[in-house]
């Protein structure tokens, strides 16, 4: 069995590819029909979106830039889910990471490359700490991490709003944002004539690290054990409480890092409400990618391309609202959930039939397939 088996059962590999691809196709079809109904030309709309996402190197650069803040939190969410934990608060951890990175650039504007490293480390640490709070509450007081991580999202967003409107506001500026990051501490552009910055490389390195962490490290095994069965994990000598906190902290660190990269690489300053919901989209992407790093990369690329493509709508297909991006993104995941549910339903029915046949002594039993969705829940 390959190492990949830790992510996907080989038997399910075809389904793991076909189901998301089918969900994407159906979502684009549905959105196309919606566009037809309101009198827009879907072919023209999709063509202009494709142009703006992949048409030339600048467009492709934009797609990759918009992939990063979705990819990193999604990887973090997948790591937490390995341990059976739902980190719904990636959006807040992303904001805290952005705040921490901004703080470093404001306090130490002249450190150059060292400043970049320091700011990104601060972002990851801050995001990790923010993510660890729901972990600690879960481990010590048994509080469900879903609600606590969600509550912390808005605390973080409001904190960023306070900082850019108060202590970090720029005098005589009507625009609520912090002082621009000094040129030396901006993430360098790595592809000429595009906006692609070095944050993309950081994300790729983390993609590899995630694979190592989850499928080749003993920490990954411990997380998986805790996600599988807490009692047997405890019997195996695993410190379950610590594993829960560590999983949530790692998860938060990914999102925090994404926030730092967004400030140093893209926005160039902290801006009130700078994230259009990357952390929430990341939950969808983690599922779309089947919790597999490569699948998550593809999912993040898809959402990044849709985001970059929406810029093309304004110029090439005016009158087509850019909100079709959110519609098609969410429809993709809705179809995915429905398809996974339908697959499980079919498998249950088949195994029930096999059990019935076995009882009447006609046919040998076929393996009982476990449900994908239930395993995620």
């Amino acid at each position, binding site marked *: 069995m390959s190492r990949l088996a830790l992510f996907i059962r080989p038997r399910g590999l075809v389904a793991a590819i076909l189901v998301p691809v089918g969900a994407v196709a159906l979502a684009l079809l549905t959105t196309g029909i919606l566009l037809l109904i309101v009198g827009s030309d879907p072919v023209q709309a999709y063509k202009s979106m494709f142009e703006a996402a992949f048409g030339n190197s600048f467009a492709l650069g934009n797609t990759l830039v918009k992939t990063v803040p979705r990819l990193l939190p999604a990887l973090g969410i997948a790591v937490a889910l390995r341990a059976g934990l739902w980190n719904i608060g990636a959006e807040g951890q992303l904001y805290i990471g952005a705040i921490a990175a901004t703080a470093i650039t404001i306090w130490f504007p002249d450190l150059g490359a060292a400043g970049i490293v320091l700011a990104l480390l601060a972002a990851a640490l801050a995001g990790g700490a923010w993510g660890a709070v729901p972990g600690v509450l879960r481990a010590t007081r048994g509080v469900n991490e879903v*609600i606590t991580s969600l509550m*912390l999202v808005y605390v973080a967003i*409001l904190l960023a709003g*306070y900082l850019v409107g108060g202590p970090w506001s720029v005098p005589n500026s009507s625009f609520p944002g912090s002082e621009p990051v000094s040129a030396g501490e901006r993430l360098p552009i790595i592809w000429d004539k595009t906006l692609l910055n070095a944050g993309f490389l950081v994300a790729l390195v983390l993609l590899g690290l995630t694979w190592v962490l989850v499928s080749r490290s003993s920490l990954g095994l411990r997380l998986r054990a805790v996600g599988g069965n807490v009692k047997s994990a405890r019997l195996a000598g695993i410190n379950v409480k610590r594993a829960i906190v560590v999983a949530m902290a790692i998860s938060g660190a990914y999102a925090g890092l994404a926030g730092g990269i967004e400030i140093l690489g893209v926005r160039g300053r902290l801006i009130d409400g700078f994230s259009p919901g990357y952390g929430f989209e990341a939950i969808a992407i983690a599922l779309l990618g089947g919790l597999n790093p490569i699948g998550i990369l593809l999912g993040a690329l898809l959402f990044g391309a849709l985001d970059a493509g929406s810029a093309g709508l304004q110029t090439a297909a005016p009158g087509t*609202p850019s909100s079709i991006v959110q519609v098609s993104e*969410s429809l993709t995941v809705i179809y995915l959930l*429905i398809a996974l*549910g339908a697959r499980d339903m079919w498998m249950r029915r088949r195994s029930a039939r096999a059990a019935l046949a076995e009882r009447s002594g006609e046919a040998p039993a076929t393996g009982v397939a476990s449900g994908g969705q239930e395993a995620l829940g």
Partner: protein
Amino acid sequence: MGSHGFVTLLLVSAVSVGTPLLYTALGELISETTGVINIELEGMMLCGAFFGILGAYWTHGVVGGFVCAALGGALLAALHGVICFVFRANQVVSGVILNIFALGITSFLLSTVLAERVSKSITHLADIKIPLLSSIPAIGPAFFDQDVMVYVALLSVPAIWWLLNRTSLGLAMKAAGERPQAAESLGVDVGRTRWLALLACGCLAGIGGGQLAIAGIGFFTENMTAGIGYIALAAVIFGRWRAFGVLGAVLLFAIADAFQIRAAGLGVHIPYQFLAMLPYLVTLVALAGLLRRSNPPSALAVNYHPND
């Protein structure tokens, strides 16, 4: 109004801020009692606000607006039910996705269907002044000189308390949320109970959104709920899953919100973000069990499948 004191003005603001919140939180209370969590409350409110305005435009009336608002919220609830009950997806995931969907689809419809039609704002709800009570100092103008939807919201609190604590349906709802297997063996149709509660929640959250749009500003804007749905979610937790507890939580959150509107007039300067954080922070503290132990329904967010 000029002669009213600070407390009166604060309460008047709090009641208008709190009414959409109260409808939505009561809906979520009903749903969570049966074991169904709705992260997509925000989306339900957005749908309610959008269809409320559209309905008020179509029917040239406020009543039609609120009916459409309820249906809009129920539509999103039905989608949640299909995804979670029929296809057995995780309720939290479904909720997160449906929020994105609701934001996308209402923005899409706003710019395509609603855009050129509702430039003129719709008729407002008239205030109904209750004799005698409305002249009570401080609380009179806030609670007894409001539009009819405010009274309905306030009266819903004892009604829902009665439903949950004094009727057999309420008992069945609690059983479905605490021990669905045991409830089923006692003859409770858990599936149907949960569906009904979910749809009721959709209607109430839709009305909450409708109140925000119809009684509030008279038109729909993109993402106009701006997080109220999440505060409603917090209010149910902080209210410890009880009708009057939810009312108390909503009042506290609404007064905090109104305070930031009114405090500026007093020359008190507190950054509004800190007051806006309050609902989330106190809910975290409550969840951590630092106040009093709060006990969510045992089967909250756990799907129930009778045939497995």
